């Protein structure tokens, strides 16, 4: 069951649910933020249309910097601007920023502790047809290894807007992962959101397993929960949009309540959300964990849905993992 206070859209399980991409939310939220905060500036590396900041560049040309195909410079220039007092958002594909410019981000942004906001677009499999060398399945791992960095993988369009608006104010280096594909908007403007706080978006009476997900996989997990309910398997679904700092309290509590956890993410199994959850539980309350994630392989050309299917990130795979973890729990 969906807890009332989550205020999810009434259309959550309907065919006609609204669809938009999380990258579109970045563009909208930045224009909104710029209206009330003149320190907000945007920099891009020859990808203003794809990262949806073309609108910003037209509305606020004097607060927009095009650096060319130069992601390392993108990071260091933004660091300089933040050090001076601006709140720079840098946009590119995740594979290039924070992929290519990781060390520049580490030194000039994280170690300096200046409030640059890194928007990693086309993350996960959403670079689809472009192929494996454009699909970034490692960004959560490399960013959460970095001190001072906040790492957020919002679940849908509404949530991405809130993440961007909060990042404007949080005074911290912040990474926000977004995607190209349209996906269901299941939260609403009124749904609770705070960076660092996980939300329980599905809660049965006697849950036997907690499904902890981030990004587009939160919705997929809700679909799984609904099917599982019909099969008589009760569960929790946790929207763990913030990978760092991770919400230890909610994760530990869910493990104590259920005794079994499944993590779901569009990312390598090594180092992502599943790893972060495992670290928390291994230290505090060990329970069996199954991870629905990419199993140490690169992507390839294909449609987004084909790749999600091939790499086992769909509802069916979550249900399968739930059954597996329940078997292990009952040993």
């Amino acid at each position, binding site marked *: 069951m969906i807890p009332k206070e989550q205020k999810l859209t009434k259309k959550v399980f309907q065919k006609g649910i609204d669809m938009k991409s999380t990258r579109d939310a970045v563009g909208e939220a930045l224009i909104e933020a710029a209206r009330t905060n003149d320190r907000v500036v945007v920099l891009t590396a*020859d990808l*203003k249309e*794809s990262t949806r900041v073309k609108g910003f560049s037209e509305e606020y040309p004097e607060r927009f910097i095009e*650096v060319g*195909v130069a992601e390392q410079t993108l990071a260091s220039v933004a660091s300089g601007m933040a050090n001076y007092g601006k709140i720079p958002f840098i946009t590119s594909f995740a594979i290039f920023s924070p992929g290519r410019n990781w060390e520049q981000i580490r030194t000039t942004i994280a170690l300096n502790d200046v409030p640059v906001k890194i928007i990693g677009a086309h993350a996960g499999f959403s670079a689809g047809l472009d*192929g494996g*060398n454009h699909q970034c399945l490692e960004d959560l791992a490399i960013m959460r290894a970095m001190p001072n960095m906040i790492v957020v993988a919002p679940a849908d369009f509404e949530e991405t807007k809130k993440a961007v608006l909060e990042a404007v104010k949080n005074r911290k280096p912040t990474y926000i992962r977004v995607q190209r594909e349209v996906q269901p908007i299941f939260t609403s403007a009124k749904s609770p959101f705070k960076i660092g706080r996980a939300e329980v978006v599905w809660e049965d009476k006697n849950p036997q397993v907690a499904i902890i997900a981030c990004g587009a996989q939160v919705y997929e997990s809700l679909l799984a929960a609904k099917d599982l309910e019909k099969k008589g398997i009760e569960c929790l679904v946790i929207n763990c949009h913030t990978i760092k700092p991770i919400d230890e309290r909610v994760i530990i509590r869910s493990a104590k309540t259920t005794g079994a956890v499944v993590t779901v993410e569009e990312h390598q199994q090594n180092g992502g959300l599943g790893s972060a959850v495992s670290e928390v539980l291994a230290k505090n309350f060990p329970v069996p964990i199954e991870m629905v994630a990419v199993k140490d392989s690169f992507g390839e*050309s*294909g449609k987004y849905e084909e*790749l999600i299917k091939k790499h086992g990130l769909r509802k069916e795979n979550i249900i399968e993992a739930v059954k597996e973890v329940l078997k292990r729990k009952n040993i």
Partner: protein
Amino acid sequence: MTAQELTKIAKEIRKDIIRMINKAGSGHPAGSLGVAEILVALYYAILNHDPKEPDWYERDRFILSNGHVCPAHYAVLSSAGYFDRKELLTLRKLGSKLQGHPLRGNLLGIETTSGPLGEGLGQAVGMALASRMDGKHFRIYCLTSDGEHDCGSHWEAVLLAAKYKLANLTLFVDRNNIQIDGKTENVLPLDSLFDKYMAFNWNVKEVDGHDIVAIVNAVKEAKGVYDKPTVIICKTTPGKGVSFMEDRFEWHGKAPNDEEARLALEELK
């Protein structure tokens, strides 16, 4: 082959590019159409290679740095005999050897993985250094785009090639004046590329990138230079041969729909 025959092959390559990207529903037509002559010159008149024995150790190496123009490379490889033409239409499909950006080991004739920009010249420099260590005499060729000159990593490799006087290395630049966000001179001004490479101690040539004879002659001259790497700046028209694509950066990464593809093929007849 005569220059006329080669020009005709370039035209066939252009048709393949349109068909492939249309079928895939995504890809990069402008750059691909613009480099047809450069690639035809390479595979039909410059490279010492054998499509029947792609792993031949003494072959010249060709590194495609601006990987997004791979439809042109795939079409030329197939036309030169590396693989069956039928495979061209699998571009960008799940399980295809013709990945959206080239993947090493996937397809005969593809020396390296590329797509992320600014990484090709460094690999070419590595091959040039390694083969020289072993006293090999084959040559290394690399194609890069003007947009890649925004990348610091490209210029790092430019410096290194000059330091080691890599005369066995020849770089082609697709100087088409466009990238994704607009004209190169608006996004990040590059002129004068000629003077920049001169200042970096390279042997510099500038040619019409659609003139196959001029390209081949420039490479011949490069072989007579023993103390410098050579760059051949090829002035090209993005979208060449398709009037509504020519010089328009909007066609950097947009697939022609069925009607546009029909019109394009009509023009390329």
